[in-house]
């Protein structure tokens, strides 16, 4: 009995096993696979956040000590000296934007790393093209059918639950395109048979469907049907409704906050999540982007607070999770005529996790002097995004190999992860 109780404590699977009898189909079928994945065991999870619109990396993490910056951006420059609203001085060269106050402690605790000067070798300044290339992971080939995260799923070397790869978006992002199963769901509560206002009829109908899919002669519909119902019971929508984040954790009431909250739920429910994807918008700051206040700062605060809330909410699960952010390119080194910045080249990204060799800004940036800029206007890409993505994915998710993860790329991965 004690064993049973311990088992029940270990997560949502318990509900499943007691309430519905038997192991879910995908676990049973995993028994024949290479390596058995136990959904009620903690999984390593990589959470990717795509900042669509091209975040101004020079403002989020500002090379304030470079004298060129103030000249290039007289109206956007911030220094760490001011008492209030100044940059967090990271290493006497770079400063973290004050709107990132909630993430700053993680940098100080060496759990968050920053990679600066990161981007794609393809110099397109089109949002669409740059996002497409970054998500496909092949900066010079549009026809790549799969996305890089889908290929990560294929390299995990074990079977998966239906919740292995989940994107909190309406449609499947390019990163998840491909042969390995991935879910796009903007609201987890939709993961149920819905008879509005009528749970009883819902149950009858649900049972009807389960029965029909159980006997269909189409093996794909049969197998996926079983998995769908298993997954649905496993997720237990009723628990979702009543989800309480950890003590004192308040998620921003924003799209990103909401997405990350749902990712936290999936992690805590231990339903087999390994790859999660969320989006953050509003980074295309051509006009009046502001400094300590304004459009950019507000957006950055949402971004930062959402991640910080997520991280605190994970509490006991922090060891299993790494968060990595990405954006398609950076913005011009100089400010433009309307108080904003235009499309540029390199930006910066953040990696947060207990396995991260944090507290550093990883970078090969020369300077912001004209002769060091690309086309004499943009921060050049000195770190290929694939060097970061491959390092984080391979190290955190313990990929057996990374062959085929980034076809046509022979670069050296960065080394910002422990172990």
């Amino acid at each position, binding site marked *: 009995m004690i064993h049973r109780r311990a088992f029940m404590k270990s997560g949502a699977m318990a509900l499943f096993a007691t309430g519905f009898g038997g192991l879910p189909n995908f676990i049973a079928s995993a028994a024949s696979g290479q390596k058995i994945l136990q959904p009620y065991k903690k999984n390593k999870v990589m959470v990717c956040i795509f900042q669509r619109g091209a975040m101004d990396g020079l403002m989020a993490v500002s090379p304030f000590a470079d004298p060129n910056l103030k*000249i290039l951006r007289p109206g956007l420059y911030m220094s760490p000296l001011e008492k209030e609203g100044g940059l967090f001085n990271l290493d006497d060269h770079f400063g973290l934007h004050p709107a990132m106050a909630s993430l700053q402690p993680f940098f100080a605790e060496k759990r968050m790393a920053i990679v600066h000067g990161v981007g794609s070798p393809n110099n397109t300044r089109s949002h*669409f093209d740059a996002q497409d290339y970054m998500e496909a992971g092949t900066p010079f080939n549009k026809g*790549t*059918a799969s996305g890089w995260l889908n290929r990560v799923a294929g390299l995990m070397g074990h079977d998966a639950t239906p919740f292995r790869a989940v994107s909190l978006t309406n449609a499947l992002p390019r990163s998840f395109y491909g042969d390995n199963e991935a879910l796009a*769901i903007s609201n987890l509560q939709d993961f149920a048979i819905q008879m509005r206002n009528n749970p009883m009829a819902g149950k*009858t109908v649900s049972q009807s469907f389960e029965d029909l899919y159980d006997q269909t002669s*189409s093996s*794909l519909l049969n197998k996926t049907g079983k998995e769908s119902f298993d997954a649905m019971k496993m997720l237990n929508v009723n628990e979702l409704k009543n989800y309480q984040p950890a003590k004192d954790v308040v998620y921003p009431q924003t799209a990103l906050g909401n997405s990350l909250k749902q990712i936290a739920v999936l992690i805590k429910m231990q339903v087999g999540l390994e790859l999660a994807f969320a989006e953050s918008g509003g980074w295309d700051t051509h006009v009046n982007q502001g400094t300590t206040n304004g459009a950019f700062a507000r957006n950055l605060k949402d971004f930062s607070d959402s991640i910080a809330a997520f991280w605190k909410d994970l509490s006991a699960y922090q060891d299993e999770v790494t968060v990595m952010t990405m954006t398609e390119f950076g913005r011009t080194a100089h400010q433009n005529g309307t108080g904003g910045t235009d499309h540029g080249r390199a930006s910066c990204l953040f990696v947060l996790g207990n396995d991260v060799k944090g507290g550093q800004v990883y970078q090969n940036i020369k300077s912001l002097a004209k002769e060091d800029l690309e086309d004499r206007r943009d921060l050049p890409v000195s770190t290929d995004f694939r060097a970061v993505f491959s390092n984080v994915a391979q190290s955190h998710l313990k990929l057996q190999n990374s062959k085929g993860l980034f076809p046509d790329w022979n670069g050296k991965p960065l080394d910002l992860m422990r172990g």
Partner: protein
Amino acid sequence: MNPKKMLRIFTVGAGLTLLFAFTQAHQQGGNAKIKMPYKKAGLNTRQAAAHLLSRFSFGARPGEVDAVAAMGLEEWLEQQLEGGLTDNEANERLKSMNTLLLSNETIANTYLTPPQVLRLAVKNKLVVRDSVKGQDKPEYREQIRQLMVQQGLKPFVELQTQLINQKIIRAAYGTNQLHEVLTDFWFNHFNVSLTKPQCQQFILTFERDAIRPNVIGNFKDMLVATAKHPAMLEYLDNSSSVSDNNALAKNPRRIQQQQNLNKALEARMGDSSMKNNAIAQQLVNAKRVQGLNENYAREVMELHTLGVDGGYTQKDVTEVARALTGWAVKPLLDDGPGKRLLDKTNIDQMQKRGFVLENDFIFRADKHDEGEKLILGKTFDGKTGYQEGMDVLDLLSRQKATAKFISKKLATRFVSDKPSDALVQKMADRFLKTDGNIKEVLLTMVESVEFWQTDALREKIKSPFELVISAVRSTNADLKQPFQVFNWCSRMGQRFYYYQAPTGFPDKASFWINTGSLLNRMNFGLAFATGKIPGISVNLLALNQNHEPESAEAALTTYSQLLLPERNQEENIKRLTAMLADQSVADKIEAASAKHPGDATMDETDAMSMNKNLNKKQQQKNDRNAMNRKDKPFTMAYQNGNNNMVSQVAGVIIGSPEFQRK
């Protein structure tokens, strides 16, 4: 005797000449009797009609299987290939859409995308302090709206909505179903995407002008039409693929101009005190387009013609890209520098210098690479300008690999996810023999026994769009808000017109079916049949001549036959009936409704009626009530002519595995 009949009689008795007659007649517009070997595959006419409709239409409407069987499958297919049936219902529903006939030029100058709106706002000094979030502010939006109304401008989203709605309406109500199905197929083959801002304004005309007129015509015509269309030129960047390896660009005067431009650019670049940033930005943009872009060249071979294993090399990609340098979109923006320049230019002079203007396509001789190229073993001397690109496309369209790739893709769409090599080969042979006549290839397909064999029947899984449209068609549903269809398709994994990659949606069951999408398919069935989707109404009882089924079992039998003609549903009905009759479930529902009699919702009532109907006496009473809707609680079970038991049964059928198959 009409010629058609004569030909038929002739062919019946004609032995060896028969084959010849077929080829001739097909090529002349298809008056020969098509010979579909479904009997050989063991199907009767009605079964064959159901199969044909499931593949060559978006689903049979009520009675359509019988109608096709009665008129003859061959006759029906002739008509569908012809595609000239009057289209009153669809046209009536399309009548209010005012963007469907517009030109690219009008669209580009009138239906502004969000970045264009922002530029307009900047130009008119309407931009508020917080540029990013500020755009959501009502006062800003109102100012912008007024400005746009004054200037006769409209937001792009209006056109985008009509683009989406017209596809839904044509698929659901169009009479020329095969043309619709093929338009869907070929659009996906030559995919362009609303996700790319540079091409989104041209997608409506792309489907209308490059795809739709060519769906059963010559493959090369469609290939060329897509290659020259602004949507494709922008989507795969050929518009910005340029070379200065030509006589015009080497002209000393021009070189001087270029140098001046570069100097101006140098001077302004990185200058933070720059006043006129927009000019510098334009210069930067101008500079940025210098160079070869291989995107289109690669995809035209990998995805549109030869296929990924089609035997071309990276060298071929580069050479094709070089051959297509200068293929671009004619300047369309009224206030753009390109248009002003073009308006001032003498077109005859331009043409003499090798420029070509055709609709919205421009061949820029000054951006074309005049060097020699070697493509798939064939040498192009580089002296023929525009014609060189045409010759390259012609070459690609005639390759064996292309014939096979296209045939396999068609067979995959219309026969099964894994069509036999023999079938593909037969189709590919016909493709080569007829210079890529798509109609001929399709006929070869339906004249093959593989199309009709049991391993093809019900083997394809409907895409979400096919699922929704087949539900609409099989129930005669009324789409007052067609856009709802789009929302549901998105939830089920097919946000059509938005697929980002040039591959288009993968046409295979495993792409469409996963745990999340499958639950959504079931939920769609329920929501659709129970009238929960706003703007979509279904009258299920009308389908059954307003006759109330006597029991859940009767409803299952009746509606299975109506919604899934020619499918064997006995087993499903038996299993479901047993479950619906489960007394413990009925009791629970009773108990639940007894507890909350006040908030008995529509759904609860329908669950009650569903189970109570199993009681014959109750059923009879129910039937009487149906005529006289005064008694309670069953009065609640009827609304808009729908019985909730029936709705629920129909919902289960639409969400069932059998309905997902075609």
